[in-house]
């Protein structure tokens, strides 16, 4: 049984249909990449999975249960956390407070302490900047806060929306290495990326989105080798 299943999921913004019949699944333990051009509907898919955008059709099934109508805050309790597009770092909170927001719904103090250790291990920079205010962090540092914060929920499914956005190349490498590491520690990851090369080479499988539809799917290697994808997303003629 897949950890996450989207069945013919549709989402509208007013009269505009952003997603049409999206069907995909993410198995426990996988990294699945979602790639596509600007406006293809990647962020909308993430929002719908997290529950901050209602469906206009189809369903979201998590761990065997239909959560299409479940309130967004309760989906966090079920085990879905997200590092959103644009990072969403709370500007007036310190790094520590931001991370504490990640475990807002949790009560297991001992495990929370472990997760703080883990996040500070993954991002030593955050350990140095615990009391810096979010709004004054650099873009890359904010990205670390956003990912670390999502991890503080100890999710079963981690949604990452463009974790490499606006980062320097060596930073991008580092972020993807960390995503791999998180996955190897047992967290399932659904990854949205513009950076198709990186995203597909790190992922077990991938889906290609075009104007709100899934147009291709396969293993990371298959998609990387696909000529039309090479041309459209990898900048290879």
């Amino acid at each position, binding site marked *: 049984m897949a950890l996450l299943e989207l069945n013919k999921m549709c989402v509208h913004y007013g009269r505009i249909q952003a997603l049409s019949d999206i069907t995909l699944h993410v198995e426990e333990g996988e990294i699945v990449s979602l790639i596509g051009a600007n406006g293809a509907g990647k962020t909308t898919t993430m929002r719908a999975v997290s529950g*901050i955008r209602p469906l206009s059709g189809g369903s979201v099934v998590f761990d065997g249960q239909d959560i299409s109508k479940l309130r967004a*805050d309760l989906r*966090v309790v079920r085990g879905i956390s997200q590092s*959103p597009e644009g990072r969403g770092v709370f500007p007036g909170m310190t790094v520590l407070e931001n991370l*504490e927001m990640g475990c*807002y*719904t949790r009560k297991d103090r001992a495990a929370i302490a472990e997760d703080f250790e883990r996040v500070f291990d993954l991002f030593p920079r955050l350990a140095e900047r615990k009391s810096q205010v979010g709004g004054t962090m650099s873009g890359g540092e904010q990205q670390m806060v956003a990912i670390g914060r999502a991890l503080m929920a100890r999710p079963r499914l981690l949604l990452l929306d463009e974790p490499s956005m606006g980062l320097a190349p060596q930073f991008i490498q580092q972020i993807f290495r960390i995503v791999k590491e998180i996955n190897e520690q047992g967290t399932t990851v659904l990854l949205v990326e513009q950076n198709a090369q990186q995203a597909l080479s790190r992922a077990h499988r991938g889906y290609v989105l075009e104007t709100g539809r899934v147009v291709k799917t396969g293993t990371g290697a298959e998609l990387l080798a696909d000529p039309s994808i090479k041309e459209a997303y990898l900048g290879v003629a």
Partner: protein
Amino acid sequence: MLAQAEDSWIDFNVGLFLDQFWSNTVDGLAYGSIYALIALGYTLVYGVLRLINFAHSEIFITGAFGAYFAMEALGLKPGPTARLGILEIIGFLLLMMAVAMIISGVSAVVLERVAYRPLRKRNAPTLVFLITAVGASFVIQQLFFVSRGANPEPALRLIRPTEVFTVFGARVTNIQLLVFVAALLLLVVADQFINRSRLGRGVRAVAQDPVTATLMGVNRERVIMLTFLIGGVLAGAAAVFYLLQIPQGVVYNGGFLLGIKAFTAAVLGGIGNLRGALLGGLLLGVVENYGQSLLGGEWRDIVAFVLLIVILMFRPTGILGESLGKARV
């Protein structure tokens, strides 16, 4: 020359201002604590919903009526101050506080449910919220008018004002001291709650980024309810302190001017900023007293609003700026 130079329309009575400076300061701080407590309700709701809850002044007067009827039920009679032992006074006070805080807190939450939540569900534009807030304010006011009439309730006096000590010759009464200390205490507790507790962090998260807050598992609706509750409870406390200082002030529209002043105080300090509400409240209380003795009683309210406009001209975000939403205190 047709007319003699008449009394000029504005007179500066510097002598009186200097004479009364310290007593004005003391009185202003005591009365300003009430502004500060009410201002917190405006600021919290604004921080979380970007809504100016104009009906907050009626939440306050609802608490005042509640406390008043509690006094009546306890057997207090209009006329001279009741002769009560110190323990009785403390007990009565605590009871009044409890009644007023519960009544104001509950009515704030009910107001939110009945007036604002349905609009939120339908994604109503900001203007609709504003009109609803003004409407709710009038409705509650008129309910008191219809049921209690236009005249103030006869004054009930629980504590006789007596001098405790003097500051530079200005007398400080037991009531003033009590109100100032208790209000300060309540505001510190509220501030710590918002800045240190887990729930408080949820409130700040919603104020700073509601969508991301939801992604963290914060229930926005519950946070909104909580802010109305806190604002209401503090307005209830303010109502008791008001009753102690102005026993004859329980009247259907008694919240109106006070509400506007408290709102002014919130903007003055920086709306959305808890400590700004405290600073703004105390500052406004003091400055309008200075204005009154310098220029005359009819200038009291004008001074308050001129102060607001002048400060906003130089610091559009208020003295301390917006903090619940942006920078840390």
